[in-house]
C-alpha cells in the first residue's frame, strides 16, 4: 500500500503551489479584480434585533433613479439560503430577527453615492421583544423560532448513568462557558457577480465551498445547474467564516447584477464584516462526573447548550460535533450527553475552525482539572488513568481500531515542556513574585471528516485530468485559503503518478470545470479528498496500463506518451473516484452510536502562563503542541497549521471578546476586537508523531481544526495552577481575573483628601 512506501514528494517541504503569486503581489483576490461597467453593491440592514418592518421610505434628497434597488420581492426563486434547514431569508421579508439582517440592496456605479444612499433608506419597525442569551431562550417566554426556540437537540446515552452516583467516591460538578469568536480573516468577505439571460449567474468570490454557493444560487434564482457558475478567487483566510456566509453575499451580488444589468462588486469593509457575518457559537456546558477513589471515570452527565443565533444555519452540525467531542479522549462506561442549540435574536453563529469541538473540549479539559483538584490527584495522572487505547470504545461505542498513542504524546509533551520541573520551581518562586507562573495541560482528540454518515451523504467525486500540453490537473472542489490544499493535493497526485511536483496543478476552483468533492471544511481535505485523489491517480495508471501500454515503472516521458496514445484512441485522459467508506463502519443517527468519525487526530498541549498580580493579566509565555495526525504530508505546512491554530486558540482564551449591545456587535473594529499580534504570541513548539492512517490520502488524517481545540483549556488550567483559582469562562480578560482575584485581596477604601 502506498502509505507505507517511501515517498519522494509527499512528506517533503515543497514550495507552496501558489506561493510566488502571493509573495510578489500577483495573486488575485476578489477586490483586486475589476470589470467593465462595474457597479458597486451595498446592503441596508436592520438596526433592531427583532421586529416587524412597518415601512421603508426613501429620502427624496437622493436621486433614486440612478440606483438599482432590490428587496425580497425581487427574488426570482426561493428567498432562503440553502444550508441544512432553509430558514434564513436571503433578504428579510416583513420582519427581522436579528440586528444587521439584510433587508434591501442598492447598486450604483459610484461607491460613495451608494453609502450616502444607504443612509437615506429609512426603515421603521414595530419592535418585538428580543431574546439575547441562551438563558432567555430556554425560558421560552418569547418563542422566536419553531415551537420552543430549539434549533436542534441530541441525546447520547451509554451504560447506566443513574446507577453510578450512589457508589461514586467523588462527584464533581462544574459549569463552563465560552464566548463568541470572530474569524478575523484579514480579507473581508467579497463577491463579484454577473448575470446574463444566456449564461445565467456567475460569481467570483472569497469562499471555501463553491458547491454550497452553487446550491443556494440555484434555488434563489430558480436556475438549472448549468446556469449557475461559482468561481473561487484567491481567498485571504476563512477559518470557517467563508463556509456559509458567501452563499448570502453571492445571492445579494447576483440579485443586483440581474436587476441592474451590470457586473456587481460587493466588498464588505471591516465594520460591516464584523457586525454582519458569522462568529463561533457561544456555549454553556455543565458537567457532573462520578469518579472512583483512584480517579477512574465512572459516569459523566453533560448538559451542553450552544447559542445558534436567529436562524438554524449550520448549528445542528456544530452541535453534533460538540456532542461527539464532549467526553474527551477517555474511557467512561456510563455517559449521558444532552445537547441543544438555542435560537437567539443575534446574527446567526456559523462554522469556525473546530466547529463545536473547541467549546466542548474547553469544558471537558477544564473539568478534568477540577476533578483532579477535588480528588487530590495530579492532573496528568488523572488523565493518563482514563485515556482511550486501541481496542477501547469511546462515548459513541466506537471501537478504537487504530493505534492510540496518547501516553506517548503525553510523555513527549511533559518532557519537552519540563512540566514537572517547572511546576516545582514555580511553587517555590510564586509566593515571592508579583508574577505567578503555572503549567496547564489539555488532552484531546478531533474527528476527521464529516460526522457519522456525513461523508456517505456527501458522495464526493474527485479526480485527475491530463491536458494535451502535458499537465496534470487535480479535479476537486476543495479550495485553498491558506491551509495548503493546492500544495498537498498536487503533492499526492504527483507522488501517486510518479511525476514531478511541477507537472501537477490544480484545476481552477470553478464549478464549470470541477466535480463536487465536497466542502473544504471539517479537516477532511487531506484525509478524505487526498485519498480520492490518490485513488484516482492510481486508477489512471491502471487505465493507461490497460489501454495505452504504460510500462510498470514509467518515466515521466513514458507517462505522458501513454496519455497521448490514450487521448488519441479514447478521448480525454481523466480519472474520477467516488468516496467509499472504510469497511465495517456503522453509524446510527437516531441513537448517536457507532463510528462517529473515520479517524481521530490526537493531541496533548501544554501551556506555560504568567499571571501578573499588578495588572491581573495572564499571558502565555511558552506553548507545546504534541500531536498524532497520521502521516504528515508536508512538514512546513503542517507546522503552520498547528501554530496558526494555537495562536487563534490563545486569542480565543485570553483576548477576543465579541461585545454585543442589544444584539449588535459594539466592538466591530480591529482596534477594539483584539487578536494577538506578533508581540503577543509565545514561542509555539510543534511535535508530530506519525502513524499513517490506511484510509487517508497517503496516510493523512485531519489536521486543520485540531490545534484550536487545546489551547484554551491548557491555558486556563495553567492559570489555575499559577493563581490557585479556577476560571471557567472564556474569553478570560484581565477585567475578569481582576473581578475574582481582587475580591480576595484586602478591601481598600478610597480616602477623600
Amino acid at each position: 500500500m502506498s502509505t507505507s512506501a517511501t515517498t519522494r514528494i509527499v512528506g517533503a517541504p515543497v514550495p507552496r503551489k501558489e506561493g510566488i503569486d502571493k509573495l510578489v503581489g500577483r495573486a488575485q483576490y476578489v477586490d483586486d479584480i475589476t470589470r467593465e461597467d462595474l457597479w458597486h453593491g451595498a446592503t441596508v440592514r436592520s438596526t433592531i434585533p427583532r421586529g416587524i418592518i412597518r415601512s421603508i421610505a426613501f429620502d427624496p434628497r437622493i436621486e433614486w433613479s440612478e440606483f438599482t434597488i432590490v428587496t425580497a420581492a425581487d427574488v426570482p426563486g426561493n428567498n432562503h439560503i440553502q444550508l441544512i434547514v432553509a430558514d434564513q431569508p436571503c433578504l428579510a421579508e416583513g420582519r427581522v430577527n436579528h440586528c444587521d439582517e439584510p433587508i434591501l440592496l442598492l447598486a450604483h456605479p459610484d461607491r460613495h453615492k451608494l453609502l450616502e444612499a444607504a443612509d437615506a433608506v429609512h426603515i421603521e419597525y414595530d419592535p418585538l421583544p428580543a431574546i439575547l442569551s441562551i438563558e432567555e431562550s430556554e425560558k421560552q417566554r418569547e418563542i422566536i423560532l419553531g415551537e420552543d426556540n430549539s434549533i436542534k437537540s441530541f441525546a447520547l446515552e451509554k451504560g447506566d448513568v443513574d446507577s453510578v452516583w450512589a457508589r461514586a467516591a467523588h462527584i464533581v460538578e462544574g459549569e463552563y462557558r465560552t464566548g463568541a469568536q470572530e474569524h478575523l480573516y484579514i480579507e473581508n468577505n467579497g463577491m463579484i457577480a454577473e448575470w446574463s439571460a444566456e449564461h445565467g449567474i456567475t460569481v467570483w468570490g472569497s469562499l471555501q465551498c463553491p458547491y454550497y454557493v452553487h446550491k443556494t444560487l440555484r434555488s434563489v434564482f430558480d436556475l438549472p445547474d448549468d446556469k449557475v457558475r461559482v468561481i473561487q478567487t484567491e481567498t485571504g483566510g476563512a477559518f470557517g467564516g467563508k463556509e456559509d456566509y458567501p452563499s448570502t453575499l453571492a445571492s445579494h451580488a447576483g440579485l443586483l447584477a440581474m436587476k441592474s444589468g451590470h457586473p456587481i462588486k460587493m466588498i464588505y469593509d471591516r465594520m460591516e464584516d464584523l457586525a454582519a457575518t458569522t462568529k463561533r457559537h457561544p456555549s454553556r456546558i455543565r458537567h457532573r462526573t462520578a469518579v472512583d477513589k483512584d480517579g477512574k471515570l465512572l459516569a459523566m452527565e453533560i448538559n451542553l447548550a450552544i447559542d445558534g443565533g436567529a436562524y438554524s444555519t449550520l448549528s445542528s452540525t456544530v452541535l453534533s460535533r460538540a456532542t461527539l467531542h464532549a467526553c474527551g479522549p477517555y474511557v467512561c462506561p456510563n455517559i449521558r450527553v444532552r445537547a441543544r442549540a438555542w435560537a437567539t435574536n443575534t446574527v446567526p453563529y456559523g462554522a469556525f475552525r473546530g466547529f463545536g469541538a473547541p467549546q466542548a473540549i474547553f469544558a471537558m479539559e477544564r473539568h478534568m482539572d477540577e476533578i483532579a483538584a477535588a480528588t487530590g490527584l495530579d492532573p496528568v495522572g488523572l488523565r493518563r488513568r482514563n485515556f482511550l487505547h486501541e481496542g477501547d470504545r469511546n462515548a459513541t461505542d466506537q471501537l478504537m481500531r487504530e493505534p492510540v498513542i496518547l501516553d506517548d504524546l503525553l510523555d513527549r509533551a511533559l518532557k519537552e515542556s519540563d512540566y514537572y520541573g517547572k511546576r516545582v520551581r514555580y511553587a517555590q518562586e510564586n509566593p515571592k513574585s508579583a508574577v505567578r507562573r503555572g503549567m496547564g495541560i489539555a488532552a484531546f482528540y478531533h474527528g476527521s471528516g464529516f460526522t457519522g454518515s456525513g461523508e456517505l451523504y456527501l458522495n464526493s467525486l474527485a479526480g485527475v485530468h491530463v491536458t494535451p500540453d502535458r499537465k496534470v490537473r487535480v479535479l476537486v472542489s476543495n479550495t485553498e485559503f491558506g491551509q495548503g490544499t493546492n500544495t498537498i493535493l498536487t503533492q499526492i497526485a504527483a507522488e501517486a503518478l510518479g511525476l514531478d511536483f511541477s507537472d501537477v496543478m490544480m484545476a481552477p476552483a470553478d464549478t464549470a470545470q470541477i466535480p463536487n468533492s465536497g466542502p473544504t471544511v471539517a479537516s477532511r481535505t487531506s484525509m478524505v479528498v487526498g485519498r480520492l485523489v490518490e485513488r484516482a491517480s492510481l486508477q489512471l495508471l491502471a487505465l493507461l496500463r490497460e489501454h495505452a501500454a504504460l510500462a510498470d515503472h514509467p518515466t515521466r516521458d513514458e507517462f505522458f506518451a501513454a496519455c497521448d496514445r490514450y487521448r488519441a484512441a479514447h478521448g480525454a485522459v481523466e480519472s474520477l473516484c467516488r468516496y467509499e467508506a472504510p469497511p465495517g463502519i456503522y453509524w446510527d443517527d437516531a441513537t448517536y452510536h457507532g463510528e462517529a468519525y473515520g479517524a481521530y487526530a490526537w493531541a496533548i498541549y501544554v501551556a506555560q502562563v504568567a499571571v501578573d498580580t499588578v495588572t491581573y493579566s495572564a499571558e502565555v509565555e511558552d506553548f507545546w503542541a504534541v500531536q498524532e495526525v497520521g502521516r504528515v504530508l508536508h512538514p512546513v505546512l503542517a507546522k503552520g497549521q498547528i501554530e496558526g491554530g494555537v495562536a487563534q486558540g490563545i486569542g480565543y482564551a485570553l483576548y477576543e471578546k465579541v461585545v454585543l449591545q442589544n444584539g449588535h456587535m459594539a466592538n466591530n473594529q480591529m482596534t477594539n476586537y483584539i487578536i494577538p499580534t506578533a508581540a503577543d504570541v509565545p514561542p509555539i513548539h510543534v511535535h508530530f508523531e506519525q502513524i499513517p492512517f490506511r484510509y487517508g490520502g497517503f496516510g493523512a488524517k485531519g489536521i486543520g481544526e485540531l490545534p484550536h481545540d487545546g489551547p484554551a483549556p491548557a491555558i486556563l488550567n495553567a492559570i489555575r495552577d499559577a493563581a490557585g483559582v479556577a476560571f471557567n469562562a472564556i474569553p478570560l480578560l484581565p477585567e475578569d481575573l481582576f473581578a475574582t482575584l481582587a475580591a480576595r485581596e484586602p478591601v481598600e477604601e478610597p480616602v477623600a483628601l
Partner: protein
Amino acid sequence: MRGNAEAHELIAPGSLTAVLNLLATEPGVWTPIAGGTELMVAYAAGRLNATRLVSLWGLSELRVIRATDQHMSIGAGATFTDLRKSAIVSEEFPLLAQAASWIGSIANQTRATVGGNLVNGSPAADSSPALLAYDAGIELISARGSRRVPYSEFHTGYKRTVLAADELLYAIHLPRRFARHRQYLRKVGTRRAMAIAKVALAGTALIESGTIREVRLAAASLAPSPTRLYRTEEILLGRQITKETLRAARAAILAEALPIDDIRSTAAYRRRVAANLLQEFLFQLGGEEFRP
C-alpha cells in the same frame, strides 16, 4: 472605506507662516492634519466632519528636536520614530522614549506626531503621562505670536484643549533636570502592541535621605483627559516610604482617579490597577521591603 475624498478639501501651503496666515484669515475653518494617524481613521470610518484640511506634514519648522543647556525642545511635528531615534530623549527622558515605542506599531510611529498625540486630546494618549511627569511646557503659535502654557494646563476636558482656533501646537519643552530622578512608566493595554491604554501611570521622584523631596505622577485613562495626580503627589511629598505611606498613597490614588467603564475596560479595574502601578513605583523607590 466610508470616507469620500471628493467631500474633503486638503491643501499643503508648504510653510508654517503660510499655514498660520491661513488659520488667522479663516479661524475655525481649517483643520490641521499632520501624520493622519487619527484623522484618516475617522475619515475611513465616515466620521470625519472636517471638510477643509490643511496639511502640516513635512513642515521642517515643526519637525525638530533640539536641546539648550536648560531645555530639550521637541517640535510638534516630530514623529515618534524621531523621538525613538533621538539620543537625548533616550538618555535623559527614557520614559518618553518608552512611551514612543508603545505607540501603535512601527508604521504608526513613522507618521504619528507628538503634537498630534496631544492636540487630539485622547485621555489614553501614550505620550502624555511621560510629558506630564517631566513637567513639560507647551508652546503655541499663531499669526498673533506665540505663548507658553504648562502642559498640565493644556487639556481642559474630554478632547478639549486651550488651543485657539487660529493656533497650532508649536513645540514641547522639557526641563533637563531629571537625571537624578527616579522614573517610572507602565502602560497597561489590551495587548503588547497596537494597544490603547486601559490605564498608564508615569512618575518621577527625587529621593533624598529616604524622603520624597519631589514627585510628579501622571496617568492616562483615569480622567477625561491625561492628568497629573496632584492630590496623590501631595500625600507623598516629604514622606519616607513606609508601609503607612504605601497605604495612604493607594487610598489617595483610588480617590483621585476618575476612570470610566468603556468598551476597553472597567472603571473598577482601572482604578485598582492604577493603585497597583503606583505601589510598584513606590516599591522601586525604596519600599521593596514592604512587598507582600
